[in-house]
């Protein structure tokens, strides 16, 4: 920082872009920040619409599929809520880890271990039927928790890059699932790679509106718990310090390694819970494809929700709408489901790009 007296004689420190200078903003008004993010989402939606046009869906069809039949239709809305249930949980999972700058990309692996835990209880009929679902839920969370702890341990002890290690753990978990669904747990009556169907007592009860099941309440309840944890508890305060500046947090006496370790484990437990909701609420069995896409969706939801639990709830429901519309479009227009993943990626890239306008200011160069 230069003193005011010396300012006129000092060249402004600027980055030249031809005739444009790039300046670092010291601060930005809230409304302006929000404006840039909203504009970037609008741009993302516009690009998505263009992709859909190329794929053969016209504008009227898009309005019908993404808005009318998804959010203003009984069947559509119930489907959105069903799709949202696991999405809320993977979104919370990613948000928990990202809050302490721990990049948990291995959500699918933890999701699978949740589903494996639930399926294990179901297959071996462990515990009284009345408590079966609770035991399944507990073991699912424990499975995700345990699977997430290994890369977390490697991170805090040895500083092993978690982006790649968590992902490698996902690939390994996937092979474990394949081993189970093609091997000892395969449904003997079918040739498909999935386990035997859960008994009715092992399925999440419906809440009485279309096919919406209790998984939605599990998601909403955990949003409330996570909100309390990050906003009201000592753990949340520590996690915020670690996320904003880990070295300063360490200097201030925060147990940084423990906070990162526990956040990563909690993230895994939430992914495991998502696996439980998927297994006990929708699939009623362990399948090889049940986790597909949930790692990226979790990342997208946490990123767009800025890691805030209430934001996760809102974004997860919107992404649930995207999933629902994606299935409908697949049926009517024959566009592959991969479209959903592509559109999520487009929107994230646009929002990531908008950070440029939030962090920097472009100015015409003065000669």
């Amino acid at each position, binding site marked *: 920082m230069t003193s005011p007296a010396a300012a006129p004689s000092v060249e402004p420190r600027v980055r030249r872009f031809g005739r444009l200078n*790039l300046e670092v903003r010291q601060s930005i008004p809230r409304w302006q920040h929000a404006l840039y993010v909203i504009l970037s989402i609008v741009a993302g939606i516009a690009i998505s619409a263009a992709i859909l046009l190329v794929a053969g869906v016209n504008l009227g069809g898009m309005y019908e599929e993404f808005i009318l039949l998804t959010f203003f239709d009984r069947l559509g809305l119930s489907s959105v809520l069903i799709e949202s249930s696991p999405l809320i949980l993977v979104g919370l999972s990613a948000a928990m880890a990202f809050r302490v700058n721990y990049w948990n990309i291995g959500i699918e692996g933890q999701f699978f271990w949740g589903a494996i835990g639930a399926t294990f209880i179901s297959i071996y009929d462990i515990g009284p039927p009345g408590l079966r679902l609770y035991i399944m839920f507990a073991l699912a969370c424990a499975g995700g928790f345990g699977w997430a702890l290994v890369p977390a341990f490697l991170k805090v002890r040895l500083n092993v890059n978690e982006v790649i290690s968590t992902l*490698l753990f996902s690939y390994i978990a996937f*092979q474990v699932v394949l081993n189970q669904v093609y091997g000892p747990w395969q449904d003997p009556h079918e040739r498909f790679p999935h386990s035997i169907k859960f008994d009715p007592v092992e399925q999440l009860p419906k809440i009485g509106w279309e096919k919406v099941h209790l998984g939605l309440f599990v998601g909403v309840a955990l949003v409330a718990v996570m909100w309390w944890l990050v906003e009201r508890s000592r753990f949340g305060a520590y996690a915020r310090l670690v996320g904003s500046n880990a070295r300063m947090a360490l200097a201030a006496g925060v147990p940084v390694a423990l906070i990162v370790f526990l956040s990563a484990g909690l993230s895994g437990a939430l992914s495991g819970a998502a696996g439980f909701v998927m297994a006990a609420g929708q699939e009623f069995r362990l399948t090889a494809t049940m986790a597909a896409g949930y790692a990226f969706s979790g990342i997208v939801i946490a*990123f767009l929700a800025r890691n805030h639990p209430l934001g996760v709830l809102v974004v997860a429901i919107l992404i649930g709408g995207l999933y629902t519309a994606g299935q409908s479009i697949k049926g009517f227009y024959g566009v592959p489901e991969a479209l959903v993943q*592509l*559109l999520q990626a487009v929107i994230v890239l646009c929002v990531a790009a908008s*950070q*440029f306008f939030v962090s920097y200011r472009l100015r015409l160069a003065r000669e």
Partner: protein
Amino acid sequence: MLTFIVDWLAYTPIFATPLLLATLGLILNERAGVLNLGAEGLFLCGALAAVVAYLATGGSPWLGMAAALAAGAAVSVLFAFLVVTLRADQVVTGITIAFFGSGLTALLGGAWMNKAVGGFTAVKLGFLSELPVVGKIVFAQDPMVYLTIPIVYLVWRFLFRTMPGLRLRAVGENPQAADAAGVSVDFYRSLAVIAGGALCGAAGGYVALAGAKIWFEDMTQGRGWIAIVLVIFARWMPGRAAFGALLFGSIEALIPRIFAAGIPVPQYFLQMTPFVATLIVLIYAALYSRARGAAPGALGLPYVREDRR
């Protein structure tokens, strides 16, 4: 036993070549200070482009490879714009590019799925290929395998024996100093990202044209992520990358050989081995700081002249 080993080693280059091409590309990226986590997406784009070009042109593997290079470069232009020009977060953007590539190729690739692709065929180098043991392993590979050897040398020579290579490394090591010396940080980083991305695309093209000889969704099965770890294993050196790629290629080549030989090993546990080996490499690199110390100084950090940190 000898036939088993010869078969195994003869299949190794087909698995090692794509890993090597991608690792070289990622070394170019990271030497310029850009962490490219989108390699898996670039692999897939390259693979689909190669298959489409191959089938559309009536069976030219070289046009397929050219299309793969172009596809990798095209997606990398987008990545370079985001992380170099707009200074977007490299981790978020890289991960998203990986899933972008997977989504895009699955959307576009429907019509090309599960079609047989002739691709590259082995070239027998005259009497050399008739030599016992060595002949089958070294002198009867497809042309891309032979072509990759000079590429390793060229990348090394570019990085360590030319002025632009020195500038590229300076930009990745200390962009402030490079900038002060009059080197355009944005130019060299963009160039490195696009060239490296093209090599990743080529790697994907090779997987489709020589390895799998078919296209299906997410066909590269994590090889892009393995290549990212191989860069650490190679300590950002092209020569060591060749060694690492051969090592990992041999692990991958072993799996189908063991199935073919009918050795009773649980299939899915066997298929974990490349990922477990990658994990071991990651842990090893973290344990020994010599490997970690080789990382370019400004890896993963966007550069803004005004921003003093």
